Each structure stands twice: as structure tokens, then as C-alpha cells.
């Protein structure tokens, strides 16, 4: 699953994430991060057999966890299926199908919005 972790200022110096990885069977990927002494947030992808337990642990430790409900959508009226977005997607969430239709994949998307900016017809929207 993907989630935003919000750190309050007092949480910034604590090694909660290190403990999470050490003590639970999880695979953990940081997709985006913006943390400074005044707190911050981090977009993570967490998987593995103990992912749920792990999330419980960091929530208890004081990190605010909000699962990402992001929808990346292409407007089929606007999209001309050119494919300009395909190669700029950092996580290969945009693919060209057998029939040459360009398809965006919601579960892979990390919300960087590079495609929404680069689309010549402004056909891709990311809603969080």
C-alpha cells in the first residue's frame, strides 16, 4: 500500500522508520519526502507479510499515517493516444496497449505529475 506519513516536529529526530524496518518483515520504499526540523511528510510504499503490524507500530509511535487514495485519470475525450507521457513516467505506470491505446495505471502511479504537465492536450489529471 501507499501512504503519506506526517511527522510532527518532535518526531523528526526519532528513528521510528529504522525500527520499523529492523523489527518487522516489510519492504519499504520512499517515493517522496519533504522533512525539515519543523516536521514534514513522506510518501511511502510498504509491502510484506507484516506491513499492517508495521503501520500499527509507527502510528503508535506518533506518526500520522494516511493511506493514499489517489486517482490518476486520463480524459478519453482529450487524449489522442500519442504516448508523449510514456517515457517520462518514472515508475512505468503509463503503457501503450496492444491496440496502441495509452493507458495509465492507478496502482503504480506515485503522483509526481510529470505526465500531467507534459501532456500536449492536458488529458491526464492526478486527484488526491
Amino acid at each position, binding site marked *: 500500500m501507499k501512504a503519506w506519513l506526517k511527522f510532527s516536529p518532535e518526531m523528526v529526530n526519532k528513528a521510528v522508520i529504522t525500527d520499523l524496518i529492523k523489527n518487522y518483515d516489510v519492504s519499504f520504499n520512499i517515493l517522496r519526502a519533504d522533512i525539515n526540523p519543523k516536521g514534514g511528510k513522506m510518501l511511502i510504499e510498504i509491502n510484506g507479510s507484516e506491513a499492517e503490524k508495521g503501520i500499527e507500530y509507527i502510528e503508535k509511535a506518533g506518526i500520522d499515517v494516511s493511506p493514499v487514495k489517489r486517482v490518476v485519470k486520463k480524459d478519453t475525450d482529450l487524449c489522442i493516444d500519442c504516448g*508523449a507521457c510514456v517515457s517520462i513516467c518514472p515508475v512505468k505506470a503509463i503503457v501503450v496497449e496492444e491496440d496502441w491505446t495509452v493507458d495509465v495505471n492507478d496502482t503504480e502511479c506515485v503522483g509526481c505529475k510529470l505526465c500531467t504537465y507534459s501532456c500536449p492536450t*492536458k488529458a491526464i489529471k492526478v486527484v488526491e
Partner: protein
Amino acid sequence: MKTIEEINQRIKDGDAVVVTAAEMTQIVNENGVDKAANDIDVVTTGTFGAMCSSGAFLNFGHTDPPIKMTKTYLNGVEAYSGIAAVDSYIGATQPSRIPEIGIDYGGAHVIEDLIRGKDIELIASSYGTDCYPLTELKTHINIENLNEAIMVNPRNCYQNYAAAINTTDETIYTYMGTLLPNMGNVSFSSAGALSPLLNDPYFQTIGMGTKIFMCGAEGYVIGEGTQHNTEVQRKNGVPVNGAGTLMLKGDMKQMDPEYVRGATMPKYGSTLYVGLGIPIPILNNDIAQRTAISDEDIVCQIMDYGTPKRSKPVVIESNYKQLRSGSVEIDGVEIETSPLSSYKKALEIALELKSWINKGDFLLTNPVKLLKSEGSSPRPLSIRRQTVLVNEIKSKPLITANPTDDIRDVAKRMVQNSINHLPVVDADQKLLGIVTSWDIANAVAKGKNMLKDVMTKKVVIAREDEPVDVIARRIDKHEISGLPIISKNNRVMGMITAEDISRLMCARNLKDGV
């Protein structure tokens, strides 16, 4: 051997055999060229790509009292009106005059909106004459109430086009789309084996008067496009780079918005996606053989768009089979590829044109003059005022600092030499960072002592052989005031600053009497 008249008779009789260029490749592979040339009457092609050199002549009709329009704006986009009283030409790449909108709504969008039947605001002004007394007007027009709306595109349908890559370390925004740094992606444009002019590479059938599919309507080739180039190197009979072009004309009143689209290349400009399909009559074996070309046989050069020069270096040669596979390998690294033109739409167009011919709705025409197939190549434009290169600018003697220098010594050095920028180098004169007088002030304010603690490590640089105009654009883009000049072997040679460039401009203007 067949003639166009014979093929047209077969179309009228419902007996013509029409296939798309994609199907033809397979047919020739399976049945051989002799049989294919005999069996097949017409091969349809298609492309749906960004074609910046497009636009439309509009005739608004006369008002009462009449006006001789000298400036016209359509939804805020200027159209050229230096043609009689109520004609204008709206070009696809003209941006909106409203700064907040700019390239997000340009001439291409006006053209799409007209074809969609939307109302467009027309603002016109004039100087007033005895016969045209009105000097201003504001009204709405649409495709219905325009007398004529004729799309005339000076350069469309490029025969092949180089793919783009970016070897610099920053993202660049080009007419080939967004190019990621360090060869992060490749962007290509041509529809390859489906593309019209790659299926008739020596222009044996296409010329002035060839009837075509243009944005969902019947259109015509009216001659070679601008920059038509017949002298590009060929492999497998087709040019390896941008070569032949077409000038086209079509009636916008008949066009279908499915096959035309206004678009914007980010930070570049607006452009028009034009849907084109050209029927190729299979008059003989050679023409049949040419239409059988496959994506694999069409070479495409991948060029470095990180070089803002007319001739861009070729990084590697690829072909459309590779490009369309989703990635190409360069120096052992898989690099993802993106088409800029819609292959799906291109196929749709080839199929649509095929169905028009099959239904007997679309007959082929005999061109009155074939396109030039030799002796045509565009010349570059030379500028009277020679481009000044970085190493031709007189700059101050080079003063550098070392990372372990004390801030106070550095401050002293800057004051003594009255400079604001100081490159920080190692023992070999290789660049490590840069400090400005602002960095020094910042260091003093924060009580830091050593230069390496305050220097900027990610430095925007200038190369000795770069034109000063390119550096001016870089200074503006990065909001900086000076760049270290770096030699080919990566040594710091000096500094070029915004002041140096303004001094150069003043000297130039003085010389030119401005």
C-alpha cells in the same frame, strides 16, 4: 502496369482492392511483389502528428459600415491581417496575447474550436479610409458564418524526422516534448511504415493536385512544403532524417474534430495535431515494393536536443521497430521511448480512407505536377551580426579560491578585484563550486569561517565555444548573475557575468547606431 483511370473505374465498380500500408508490408512479404502489384490497387497511409507549420485563411465578410481590418484577434490570438480588408491567416503557433494564457491557448486551439463549431470572439481594428470608415469592431464568429475557412498548411507530413534525446544534466522542454536529463528518454515523431511520404519515397505518385484525407475531410496537396529536402542520405530507399514535406489545403467546414487537435508542448508553444492520409495508387512493381517498407527498414537518427544549435549531433541510429518497442539501448542502457504522434489515430485514418475508397466515395486524382524528387535542399539563414562566442568576450583576469580558504581572505580578494563571483577550484584548476558576495555576507551573518561551508556546489557553467546568446538565456533561466567558463578538459578559464553581456550589447548597439 495500371493507370489511375483504370483504378478509379475499379473503385466505381466496387472492384478495387484497397489495403493499408501496414497490411501491404505483410502482403508483399507473403505473396511477393509481382503478385501484390497485380492484386492491390491502392495503399492507404496515415499520420496524426504535431505539425506546427499549419494555419487557416478565414474570410469574415464585410460589415456595414465596412472596415479594413489591420489587426485581428480570435479569442485573444492574433491573426495576420495584412491581406485585403476582411481576410486573415491564423497560424497554429501564435500564442494568446493575454500573458497568463500565452501558449496554453494558441492559433492551433482557435482552429480546433472553429472546427468544433464553437463561437470565437473576433476583435478587429483599423486606421479607417474613405471606403472603409469603421475603425474598430468586436463580435463573434463561427465556422457557419465565416464565408471561407480554408486550412492551408505550408509544411506538413514530414518524410521521416529525427528522434530526440537530451545529454545535458537538466530537463529540457522542446517541440519534441519533455526530454529528461542524462539521456532519460527518447521522443520520436514519425508514424514510420504508415507515414505517407515514406511509402512513396521518390514521389512517384504524389504531387500538386493529389487528393488526400485531411482532418476527416477531402483535402489536396498543393505542392512541396517549405524546407522540402530531397538531398537527405537514404537507407533502404528512404531518408534517414527529415526530408520531403507537403503544402496542403482543405476546407475546414468539412473537417471532423476527431482528426485535428490544438495542443501545447510545455514551455515551447502551441501546435496543431493534423490527421493526414494519402492514397498511393499501385501503378507498377516499384511503387508496390516501396509501399511494402517495414518499421524495421526505416532508419531514424536519435539526435541530442541538449545542443541548442542548428546541427544537432547524432547520438545513435535506430529504426521504428525499435523505437515503437518502448525502449532503445544506448551504451548498454535501456532508454524508454515515447511517440509524439498517435499511431492509433494514424491507423484509424488509414482504415477510414480505405473505407471511403471501398465505398466509392473517394476517387484518386492524377497530380498535375509531381513533387520534386531531386535538387531541393533548404539553405540556412546567415545573420549579419556574427554570433559572439564565450571565449571572444573580454573578461576580467581569472581569480579563484580554494575550498579551505578563510572567508575573510576571500572577502578581501573579492573587494580588491571588485568582483562578485569567485569560482572555487582544486589544485588542478578543476571546478568544485562557486561563491558570490551574497554567499560571503550569508557566511558572516551565520558565523561560518571556511569557504567550502558556504560555496554552491551545483554550478551552472558556460563552455568556451558556446554563443553568448545561449549563455544569456541560461542566466535568465536559472536566475543567476554569472557562470564560470570551463574548458574542454574541464579547467576553469574565467567568469562570464550578466554585466559582461550587457556591456557587449551596449558596444554592439553603439556600433549599429541604435
